């Protein structure tokens, strides 16, 4: 699959990289080869190991095995700073420069001219807007004397002009939009003479025009012989800009492919770990039959949307129904869940529970009307780590008591013990701080918190992530029995198999919009994958 490198030796070769975290093999003998002057996309679902691989490469994490060769030299760096000095720069989604310093100061941060420091190399590309020329041929400017602000500003301006950016470089970086900030950090990386620029989800917060601009910069870098390792979850963008893909899944390399010869459907299949050709016979098992179609609509979204997160969307879920949301990471599935629950404030449309319209942007109002949300990121959005299992489980119930109300301690303990038994939470007891539980058990605690509150609609965003196989089956069974008891469930999972198995109806999302609604026999993995790959062009049967 890995085609021989054309001509010159590869710029980067990672071979058999192994990285272990407690209890997890995060990278299992991962190989990655980058040619000089190529844009290489690293693809994979959440938890596939993309970020870990980048962090091993840039010295954030030490590796537990394998070797790295960079530009014919073995590479073993211990920090991103060291990686940068070797010619590897990383651009993150959140710009890692200093927003309060000026654009020029950021570009020359740590490299500013020093008093009598003539020997120190000060580089600046003297391009004239065309960006032509070999990046290794750069004029040297010796700097003697105190900071020469005029020169710093002049150089920063010239440098940015090569990226077609005309900025006032004296203004704070933070006063510019994220897209501009990213390009400034790219300009800085290039000026430091990077041979490899890693971009980790650089487009997540950019609009279409800004993405185009960024891609223009990437193409120019490629023309200059710089290699770019590009991490994204947007398929179309990956196809638009990349020469090759390396797909990771569960810490292993699925393969490296030429972008031009890999059909989208196959790419999706590789990412999700399903072979599109063998999917026909796996179909879903609808929990309910015909009468479900007549059941009362409990939750409805009308034109619900938020700029940069989700295009205006209609959705509804009935009493006793499981509505699956399928789509790749960043497709808008989590965003829809957050808008329904009011975590993020919608800027268009409305959410209705029964006949009542929810106050926008208020989870508290949503809970009062009987909604519940098990958030995707249990660490930041779910757990209160210092509180005990009991307190975490009783949290939602207690949040809606009057200020001086009380749920007797004895009842709380009973509640906690019931759910510890029901969900098989492994803990020393109700009083153990939830921080000390394993990830899967923490997830169960959050689930218990919502079940205890007895909602009418429960939104589960990746409820099975980080849980072992047995736990997954338990949670799936639980979802089933809850729906049978009349609870409406919105079920989100990266595991297509789970979505298909458990959902009565599936909304497929792609590029921040719902592109298809599948019901009945149409709910199968193949259809979902084709829809994700093809997008709006292939609507499922209504």
């Amino acid at each position, binding site marked *: 699959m890995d085609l021989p490198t054309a001509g010159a030796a590869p710029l980067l070769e990672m071979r058999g990289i192994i990285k272990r975290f407690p209890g997890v093999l995060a990278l299992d003998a991962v190989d990655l080869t980058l040619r000089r002057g190529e844009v290489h996309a690293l693809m994979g679902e959440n938890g596939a190991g993309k970020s870990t691989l980048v962090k091993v490469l840039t010295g954030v994490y030490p590796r537990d095995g394998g070797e790295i060769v960079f530009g014919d030299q073995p590479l073993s760096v211990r920090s991103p700073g060291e990686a940068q000095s070797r010619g590897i720069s990383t651009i993150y989604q959140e710009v890692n420069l200093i927003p309060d310093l000026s654009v020029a100061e950021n570009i020359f941060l740590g490299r500013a001219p020093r008093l009598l420091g003539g020997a120190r190399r000060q580089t600046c590309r003297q391009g004239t807007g065309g960006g032509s020329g070999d990046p290794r041929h750069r004029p040297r400017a010796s700097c003697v004397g105190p900071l020469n602000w005029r020169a710093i500003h002049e150089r920063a301006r010239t440098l940015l002009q090569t990226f077609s950016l005309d900025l006032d470089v004296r203004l704070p970086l933070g006063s510019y939009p994220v897209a501009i900030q990213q390009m400034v950090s790219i300009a800085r990386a290039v000026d430091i003479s990077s041979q490899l620029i890693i971009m980790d989800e650089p487009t997540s917060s950019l609009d279409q025009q800004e993405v185009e601009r960024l891609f223009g910069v990437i193409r120019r870098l490629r023309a200059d012989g710089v290699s770019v390792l590009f991490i994204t979850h947007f398929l179309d963008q990956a196809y638009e800009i990349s020469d090759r893909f390396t797909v990771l899944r569960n810490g292993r390399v699925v393969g490296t492919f030429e972008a031009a010869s890999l059909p989208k459907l196959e790419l999706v299949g590789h990412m999700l770990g399903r072979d599109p050709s063998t999917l026909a016979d796996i179909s879903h098992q609808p929990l309910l039959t015909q009468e479900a179609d007549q059941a009362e609509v409990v939750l409805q979204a009308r034109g619900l949307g938020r700029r940069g997160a989700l295009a205006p969307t209609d959705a509804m879920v009935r009493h006793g129904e499981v509505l699956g949301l399928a789509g790749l990471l960043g497709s808008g599935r989590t965003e829809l869940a957050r808008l329904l629950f009011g975590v993020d404030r919608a800027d268009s449309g409305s959410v209705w529970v029964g006949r009542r319209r929810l106050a926008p942007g208020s989870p*508290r109002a949503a809970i009062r009307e009987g909604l519940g949300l098990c958030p995707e990121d249990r660490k930041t959005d779910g757990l209160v780590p210092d509180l005990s299992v009991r307190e975490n489980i009783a949290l939602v119930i207690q949040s809606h008591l009057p*200020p001086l109300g009380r749920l007797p301690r004895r009842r709380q303990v009973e509640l906690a013990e019931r759910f510890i038994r029901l969900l098989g939470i492994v803990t020393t007891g109700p009083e153990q701080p939830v921080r000390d539980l*394993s990830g899967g058990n923490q997830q169960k605690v959050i689930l218990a918190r919502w079940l205890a509150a007895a909602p009418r609609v429960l939104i589960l965003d990746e409820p099975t992530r980080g849980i072992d196989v047995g736990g997954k089956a338990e949670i799936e069974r639980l979802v089933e029995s809850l729906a049978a008891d009349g609870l409406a469930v919105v079920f989100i999972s990266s595991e297509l198999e789970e979505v298909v198995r458990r959902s009565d109806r599936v909304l497929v999302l792609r590029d921040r919009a719902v592109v298809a609604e599948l019901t009945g026999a149409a709910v199968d993995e193949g259809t979902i994958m084709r829809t994700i790959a093809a997008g709006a062009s292939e609507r499922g049967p209504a």
Partner: protein
Amino acid sequence: MSEPTAARRPWRYRPGPTLWPLVALVLLFAYNALRTPNFLHLEVREGRLFGTTVDILHRGTPVVLLATGMTFVIATAGVDLSVGAVMAITGAAAALLLTRTALPVPAVVAGALAVSVACGAWNGALVAGLGLQPIVATLVLLVAGRGIAQLLTDGMIITFERPSFEAIAGGAAGGVPITVLIAAGVVLLTLLVTRGTVLGLRIEAVGGNERASRLAGIDAGRTKLLVYGFCGLCAGIAGLIATADIKAADSNNCGLFLELDAILAVVIGGTSLSGGRANLPGSVVGALVMQTVTTMIYAQGRGPEYTLVVKAVAVAAVCLLQSDLLRAALRRRSGELRAA
């Protein structure tokens, strides 16, 4: 993924966060019992208990009260720098009401405390409503508060003669100073309310993970408003005691630097400045540790210049005892010694 062990272990004693400050207090008392003359001596004069230990409790009440309010502010991952200034404002308000109006003492107390609650609510509004950083939001009132108090009193020390008001600081009931009864009452009531109702959980949830609390339906803003308001009330009570004690409203010196003592008491008591868990008993013990050090130094006839240094040493010692890193290092060390 494998499930890391959380299997049932046999029950064993787990030191609570109050343990180490309590150890410090006991050690201080033991030292004093040996070294400070008449430390444990108690006598009844004019129906009131007298003695060094009683004095520690009595003198410690303002900081105990401040620390009570501060504990919950800090548990929400905030801090209130203005409590000393609020003491001064409350004292000034009380003195004005006593000298310029004919209001009965209970009304004066209620009026002055209303002012203190308003001060706390102002802090809470800045923090919860405008989203200012607590340290900045309360710095406003720290700076402005004494100015307001001086404006109220025209920059003068207002003295008054009203025995029934002075009794707040000087009186006794059943031999116990009223100050101690007030502080004990406030602490017990607060413990009862925070442990017995959902309030304590909400405060700790907001401090432990504000985003998660919001998703669980907790109104973080209202919770904070309440906590800062309560902190203001506690400062108000402390201000009334300080004012009644000297029979005057001294806007310049009432409660000066006490916010720092209160924060220290809370930290010594084991409530983390990053929020999440409130340990009120620990804060009370922490306040008493500091008062014991102060009283000890006076009782041994040394000057106040020693107080600050010795206090600093005591605080540092307790903080070191609480440090997980240090304790882990000590355990390793003792393990090595035992193995050797």
